[in-house]
C-alpha cells in the first residue's frame, strides 16, 4: 500500500499495533476485575506527569511513568486503608492530578505545549524514540503477564482462594496496577489521555462477549485491539480524522457486533 511509503506512517502503524495489543492484553484483567475506572483515573493522572516533566525538564515518558505509578499505588494504598472506598480514592486522585497539570501548564507560559495532542493523541507525531519506548515497555508488560499468568488469573478469578493458598494477593494487585500504569503511559501519545481507557476496556469487553475460556478471551481481545488499531489508522488517514478517535470507534463498533452476536447465555442460578 502506497501510504506505507512514508516513514512516519510506518512508525505510526507499528506504534498503533503495539499499543492496540498491549492495551487489549491488560484490558482483559481490567474488564474481569472491574478496574475500568482506575484505568481512566491513571490516564488522567498522566497529564500531571507530563506537565511536571515539562516543568522540570525531564524525559516526558519517564516523568509520566513515574507519576502514574505513584498515583496507581497511591489509589491502591489509600483504598486498602479502608477509610474511603476505592472509587472515591480514584475520584480524588483523578481530578487533583489533572488540576496539578493544568496549574503547571499555566506556570509555563511561553512554552508551546501540544495540549491537544496529549489529550486526544497524535499518532503522526510518534518519533523513533517514542517507538523504542513503546517496544521496550510493551515487552515488559508482556513478559510480566507471561511470568505471572497463573497467579494473575487466580487473583482475578478468585482472590479468596488465592489468599487461602498463601499467594501474595495484595502484591499481585499492585503488580496489576503497575502494569496498567505502564500501559497507559505508552499509549497516551497515540490515543490521548482522554481516550486511552476506551482502548483498554473495549476490545476486552468485546472478547468477553464471545469467549468461553480465559486464554481464548485474551487472544481474541489482543486480535480485536490490533485489528482496531490498523483499521482505525487507515480510516483516519483516508478520512483525515484524528487517529486515536478512529481507533477507539472501530473497537467500539466491534464491541457492539460482539454484543449483538454474543453466545454468552444468561448465567444459570
Amino acid at each position, binding site marked *: 500500500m502506497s501510504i506505507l511509503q512514508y516513514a512516519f506512517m510506518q512508525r505510526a502503524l507499528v506504534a498503533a499495533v503495539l499499543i492496540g495489543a498491549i492495551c487489549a492484553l491488560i484490558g482483559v484483567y481490567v474488564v474481569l476485575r472491574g478496574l475500568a475506572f482506575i484505568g481512566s483515573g491513571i490516564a488522567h493522572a498522566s497529564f500531571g506527569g507530563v506537565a511536571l516533566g515539562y516543568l522540570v525538564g525531564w524525559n516526558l515518558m519517564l516523568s509520566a511513568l513515574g507519576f502514574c505509578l505513584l498515583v496507581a499505588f497511591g489509589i491502591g494504598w489509600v483504598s486498602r486503608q479502608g477509610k474511603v472506598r476505592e472509587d472515591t480514592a480514584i475520584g480524588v486522585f483523578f481530578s487533583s492530578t489533572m488540576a496539578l497539570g493544568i496549574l503547571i501548564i499555566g506556570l509555563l507560559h511561553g512554552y508551546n505545549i501540544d495540549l491537544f495532542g496529549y489529550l486526544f493523541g497524535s499518532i503522526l507525531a510518534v518519533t523513533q524514540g517514542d517507538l523504542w519506548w513503546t517496544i521496550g515497555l510493551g515487552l515488559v508488560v508482556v513478559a510480566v503477564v507471561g511470568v505471572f499468568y497463573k497467579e494473575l488469573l487466580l487473583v482475578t478469578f478468585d482472590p479468596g482462594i488465592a489468599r487461602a493458598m498463601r499467594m501474595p494477593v495484595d502484591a499481585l494487585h499492585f503488580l496489576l496496577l503497575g502494569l496498567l500504569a505502564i500501559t497507559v503511559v505508552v499509549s497516551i501519545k497515540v490515543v490521548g489521555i482522554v481516550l486511552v481507557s476506551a482502548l483498554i476496556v473495549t476490545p476486552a469487553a468485546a472478547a468477553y462477549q464471545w469467549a468461553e475460556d480465559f486464554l481464548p478471551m485474551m487472544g481474541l481481545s489482543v486480535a480485536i485491539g490490533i485489528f482496531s488499531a490498523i483499521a482505525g489508522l487507515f480510516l483516519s488517514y483516508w478520512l483525515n480524522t484524528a487517529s486515536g478517535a478512529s481507533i477507539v470507534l472501530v473497537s467500539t463498533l466491534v464491541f457492539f457486533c460482539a454484543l449483538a452476536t454474543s453466545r454468552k*447465555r444468561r448465567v444459570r442460578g
Partner: protein
Amino acid sequence: MSSTAVVELEHVSVSFGPVVALEDVTLSVEQGEFLGVVGPNGAGKTTLLEVILGVVKPDSGVVRVFGRSGDEAGGNAHRIGYVPQVSTLDARFPIRVLEVVLMGRYDQIGLGRLPGKQDRLLALDALRSVRMEALEKRPIGQLSSGQRQRVLIARALVGKPELLLLDEPMTGVDASVRETLYDLVNELHREMGLTIILVSHDLSVVSKYVDKVACMNRRLVAHGLPREAVGPEMLAATYGDSAMFFAHGDVPHLVVEPGCLVREMEDGSGEGDPDEEEGH
C-alpha cells in the same frame, strides 16, 4: 489435647474493628473427624475457617493446625483444601471447569510455568471423585449451582489435602441436590479419610451426617455429638430466644424469625453445654 488433633484452637478471639467475630473459642478437631459448625449469620463461622486457613490472624489465643502455629503455619497451605461459598464465584467469568480445578494446583507449579499433563490427570481425577468429569470442558457459567459447587470441591481436592474446609456448601443449591452433595462429602470423608469441617446454618441436615457439631454464636456455645450438643437450651443460646424448634427425629428442627438471627448474647450463655470443651 490429644496428639492426633489436626486443628487446635485455644481461647481464640478475633475482632474486625469494633465488630467481634470470634470470642474465646477453644476447639479441637481430631484426625478423620467430620465436624459440622452451625450458627446464625454473623456468628463468625467463616472467620473460624479463615483462622484455620491462616488468612486471619487471631487477636489473642493460639491456633495450631497440623501442630504448627503462627508463622510456621504457612507451610500448611497445601495440606488444607478450602471450598469457599459458591456465591463468591463470578459465574460469568470466561473459564472452563477443568481450568478451575487446575487452579487448586497452581501453588505447586513454579512461577512462569503452566499446568502440565500430570496436573491435568490429577484434575481429571478430582473431577471424577465429584462425578463431574463429563463436564470438564463446560464453561462455568453453563453449570447449575450444585455442579459449580462440585467443581469447587474438586478444586479443593486436587491438591490432595488432609483437611477439607467447606463454607456453606449448600447455599443456593436446590433442595433436591443437597442430599446428593451431602452424600458426596460424606463419601469423601469415609473413603479418603479426610478430616472435614463443614460450616452451615442448616442445623437439621448437618446433624444427620457429621460426627460432631459445634454450635457458634461468636462464642462456642456447644460442641459434641449431634444428639448431645443440640438441645433446646443450646439452640436458644445459639440462635436467640425467638427461635422455635420442632422435635422430630434425633435432632430438633429450627425456625427462626429473620430479624432475630444476630442477637447480643450474654456471657455464660453456653452454660447449657451437655459436654466438653468449655473447661479448657
